[in-house]
């Protein structure tokens, strides 16, 4: 309780102390506005805004808004807004005392054929930004990365230092030693539980609908909770506010259509994508024929009528995706996965006060099912229903400091039916409510110093063993010279919604979610992060980050479960640490990145410490994209990972195979060689590396804008090993040399 009292005292004192400044501040005003795309009206998230005279910068928030407070009155100010892929724009404004001056920027995209990467004012914006562990990826950046069979959000993450994958066939990612289920994945604020298509090869989010995404690799702030490792916050586009637009695209795998346009006082966007061919899956799945079929569909409608309510924007959004493997034979099992999401959100910008707030409700469901038909495969069913209510209030003080607080209430029901590898049946139906209140104070009044300090008060949690707790979250930045920032973060994170994950599966078909059972404590992870950011010239950034993460009560599947009454999980521990470096340079013609990560991850169960399957000691990525003019863009990315852990073989023995219930008397014909394994994950597979190249061309034909992409994955046909088939001795490799192409047409 002493910790709770300390943070409550801290927060209340801060609010009282700093909110009074508004009353007594004289001779200063506020500039507030939004940065949008001039053609579509789309908000530009995380754009840079700079007051030249004051050399003060900031970034737009996740709705495209920015605020400058405490600007001395009666002076002309030159404000510059810039964003990747847009021409920078300069406006002048006169600030009046005790008034909020609205200043909206509409940026013009660089010509269709000319991609530019401009980031004016970034240096100023970041000197006090408490963003250690945060990586924002805009769609313009995503487009400049090498494309694969499909442009994929999750695959783009593997270029981010600290993010690991276990190979080409899965887009599941692991961050700083955390397991995949410890990543919170949000679509417009709503949790998505199985965001994968095609057995995990692709994400379910069509990049065409995405405006921006921010990835917190750790140390994430108080407004996020419920997961122990990371947050991926995906924000979709609002749709073209100015004119109707349609686009269609085709790849070797899917066809998709996107429609967007204005409605009275708003806009809409609708997108759908569906597979039309399975043949490309063979490349991913060792030439197996997979009758896989998937689709996804999303929409978003925005309504902002000043006559109805000033400063209000109402958003309705929805998403559905389904994957099916239907096999012709009654003796072969079928599979089905489905996500559904629907949400409504009310954004409000307060008149004449620098306050933003939003309130929203979402319903997110997931159902995964293995339908055995007449096969020997065991039936499995997982159902998740998540009804969430969230409100967030952001108050910008005259001092430029911000107070953020809100509530996050979830009602979650999970159902799971499965039979494990010992024949033990689990039928778990659980329901719980998660009620959290959070508050934080962003102390950013100084250009060279910032603190984001807050807490998350978990009033009620999903599992019965979780009582009320308070999780502190602190992040700070200090720039002792403008070119160098020191960043630190610390936080405690709890999780009591987990997956039943088979650690030894490279390709997992069924990762059911369930509320942490009563016999386990919730997972608690503590993050310690430190970093340095160097920005010696405008377009060159060097970032160094180190981290240490300690995780208690880590649920690990009980592989020894024999009886129904045996627990499904056992409590283990996790530990990870490492350091990451990133160097990026960009200008109008080139974008160059290079990163290196050196990391260690461990899990401990019953005193036995081992490397999890995603532990990679060294990762090195380098990418280069060059705008060669006239709509041509060439990009390449080379990825190197040192080998993944694997368990060695110590030999074989003849295992008695009971195929028939009447037990063949011919015992010696009923045995098969079976492998004996050494210590778990003690050895390493060969290193992984791959070079991908993409050539893209944009061209206009009358009213049609076309984008053609030609990609080659694994240019030099590296034989990256996926696994060693112990039964056949076959070495199964990942993606071979794989050319692919996509075509997109905008009408």
């Amino acid at each position, binding site marked *: 309780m002493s910790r709770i009292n300390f943070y409550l005292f801290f927060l209340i004192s801060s609010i009282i102390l700093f909110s009074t400044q508004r009353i007594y501040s004289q001779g200063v005003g506020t500039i507030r506005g939004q940065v949008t795309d001039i053609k579509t009206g789309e908000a530009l998230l995380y754009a840079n805004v700079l007051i030249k005279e004051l050399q003060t910068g900031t970034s737009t928030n996740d709705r495209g808004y920015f605020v400058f407070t405490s600007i001395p009155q009666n002076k002309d100010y030159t404000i510059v807004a810039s964003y990747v892929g847009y021409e920078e724009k300069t406006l002048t404004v006169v600030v009046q005392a005790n008034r909020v001056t609205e200043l909206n920027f509409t940026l013009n995209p660089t010509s269709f054929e000319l991609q530019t990467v401009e980031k004016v004012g970034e240096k100023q914006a970041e000197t006090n930004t408490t963003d250690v562990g945060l990586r924002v990826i805009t769609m313009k950046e995503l487009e400049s990365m090498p494309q694969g069979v499909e442009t994929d959000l999750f695959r783009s993450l593997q270029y981010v230092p600290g993010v690991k994958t276990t190979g080409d066939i899965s887009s599941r990612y692991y961050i700083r030693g955390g397991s995949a289920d410890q990543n919170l994945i949000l679509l417009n604020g709503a949790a998505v539980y199985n965001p994968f298509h095609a057995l995990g090869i692709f994400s379910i989010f069509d990049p065409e609908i995405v405006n921006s995404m921010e990835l917190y690799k750790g140390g994430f702030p108080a407004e996020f909770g419920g997961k122990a490792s990371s947050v991926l916050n995906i924000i979709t586009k609002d749709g073209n506010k100015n004119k109707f637009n349609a686009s269609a695209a085709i790849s070797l795998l899917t066809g998709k259509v996107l429609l967007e346009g204005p409605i009275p006082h708003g806009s809409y966007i609708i997108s759908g994508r569906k597979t039309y061919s399975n043949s490309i899956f063979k490349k991913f*799945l060792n030439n197996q024929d*997979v009758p896989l079929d998937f689709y996804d569909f999303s929409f978003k409608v925005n309504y902002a009528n000043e006559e109805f309510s000033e400063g209000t924007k109402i958003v309705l959004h929805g998403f559905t995706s389904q994957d099916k*493997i239907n096999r012709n*034979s*009654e*003796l072969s099992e079928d599979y089905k996965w489905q996500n559904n999401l629907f949400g409504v959100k009310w954004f409000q910008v307060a008149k004449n006060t620098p306050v933003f707030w939003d309130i929203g409700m979402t319903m997110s469901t997931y159902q995964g099912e*293995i339908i055995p038909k*007449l*096969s020997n*495969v065991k039936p499995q069913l997982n159902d998740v229903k998540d009804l969430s209510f969230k409100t967030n209030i952001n108050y910008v003080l005259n001092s430029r400091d911000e107070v953020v607080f809100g509530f996050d209430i979830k009602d979650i029901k999970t159902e799971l039916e499965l*039979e*494990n*590898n*010992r*024949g*033990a049946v689990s039928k778990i139906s659980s329901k719980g409510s998660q009620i959290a209140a959070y508050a934080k104070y962003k102390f950013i009044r100084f250009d060279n110093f910032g603190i984001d300090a807050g807490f998350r008060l978990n009033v009620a949690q999903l599992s019965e063993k979780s009582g009320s707790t308070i999780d502190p979250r602190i992040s700070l930045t200090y720039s002792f010279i403008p070119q160098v920032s020191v960043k630190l973060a610390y936080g405690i994170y709890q999780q009591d919604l987990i997956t039943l994950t*088979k650690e*030894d*599966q*490279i*390709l997992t*078909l*069924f990762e059911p979610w369930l509320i942490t059972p009563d016999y386990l404590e919730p997972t608690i992870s503590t993050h310690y992060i430190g970093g340095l950011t160097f920005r010696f010239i405008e377009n060159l950034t060097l970032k160094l980050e180190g981290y240490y993460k300690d995780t208690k009560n880590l649920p690990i599947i009980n592989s020894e479960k*024999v009886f*129904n009454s045996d627990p499904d999980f056992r409590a283990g521990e996790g530990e990870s640490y490492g350091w990451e470096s990133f160097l990026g340079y960009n200008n109008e013609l080139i974008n160059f990145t290079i990163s290196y990560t050196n990391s260690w991850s461990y899990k401990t169960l019953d005193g036995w410490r081992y490397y999890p*399957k995603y532990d990679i000691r060294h990762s090195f990525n380098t990418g280069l994209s060059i705008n060669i003019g006239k709509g041509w863009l060439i990009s390449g990315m080379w990825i190197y990972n040192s080998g993944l852990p*694997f*368990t*060695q*073989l*110590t*030999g*074989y*023995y*003849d*295992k008695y*195979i*009971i195929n028939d*219930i*009447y*037990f063949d008397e*011919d*015992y*010696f*014909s009923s045995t098969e*060689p079976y*492998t*004996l*394994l*050494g210590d*778990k994950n003690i*050895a390493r597979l*060969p290193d992984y590396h791959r070079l991908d190249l993409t050539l893209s061309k944009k061209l206009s034909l009358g009213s049609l804008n076309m984008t053609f992409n030609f990609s080659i994955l694994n240019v*030099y*046909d590296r*034989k990256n090993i996926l*696994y*060693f088939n112990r039964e*056949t*001795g076959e070495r199964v490799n990942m993606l071979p040399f794989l050319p692919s192409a996509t075509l997109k047409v905008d009408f």
Partner: protein
Amino acid sequence: MIFILIISCEDDLNPFIKGEDVFIVNCILKNDRGVQTVYLSKNYQAENFDPKSNTEDHSIGNGFVRVFFKDSVKIFSDTLVTQNIDGNEKSFNSYINSNFLTKPNTEYELEAVLNDGRKLRAFTKTPNKVSFIPDSNNIIPPPDKNYISVGWSTVEDQLYSSARFKFIYFKNENGKQVRYEKEVPRTYVLENNVYVPYYPVPSYLQRINVEMIAFDRAMAEISEGDPDKKNYTILTFILEILVYDKNLTAYYASRSELGESFAITTNESDYTNISGGRGIFGSFIKQRFAVRFTHEYIKSFGYEPGLTSSINE
């Protein structure tokens, strides 16, 4: 370009490491016969990742095997058994006791002492007998259904059981009545224009449902191509039920874990209840129930009815 040339396109992988010797015991005690067998073997290495390239005999001789139960003990004799494997005569060591009839609900302890003095031990408890749940509809064909459904109950839960219908018939072959058994699958599935029998697999279910079309097809199959149906006499219909002990339940279940077609598992677990080694020491009990049938049903195929019985064996 130089960079691409100097990097390797494939690295070798040696997935092996030397491990300790591992000894294996396999024995399933059966209640439907008096001969019980224990098999002892050891692990081995293989070249070129092909374990079948090692053709040595992995069985272990000169061991001493006993099974204890209540106040008794059964000694197993080290016996050399010759079998034809892939066209080659091979000899293996087995441990046999020909006078060992197991009983339900009894604990058995196996002890195998290897010739180096190493001991391997394991326990099994045979399941209780099951009770057949009487149902007036359990007659072939059932009066008002197109399938036959038979249930049973066990004392212990969490044990696998499996059941299979079969019928016994005689065929007149050159004036001599030859006895045959024909198993009836749960159903037939049409795969590539061929009817494939689908048999029930062991599970926790304590009921078997068999479609009458499966009986019809199985009945028809025995005389397929033979116009002289009168040569066939259907003696009786039987339901056989096997109940596995908990070890065999877990062992069988662990083998079927690999069923998910597209999952790739690298470290599948290996269930054993052998202390000090690998393998399985389990047991099952088998019971048989006669199922009533009507003469009209037999005659509808042109066959002769033998017995009409509802007597349990």
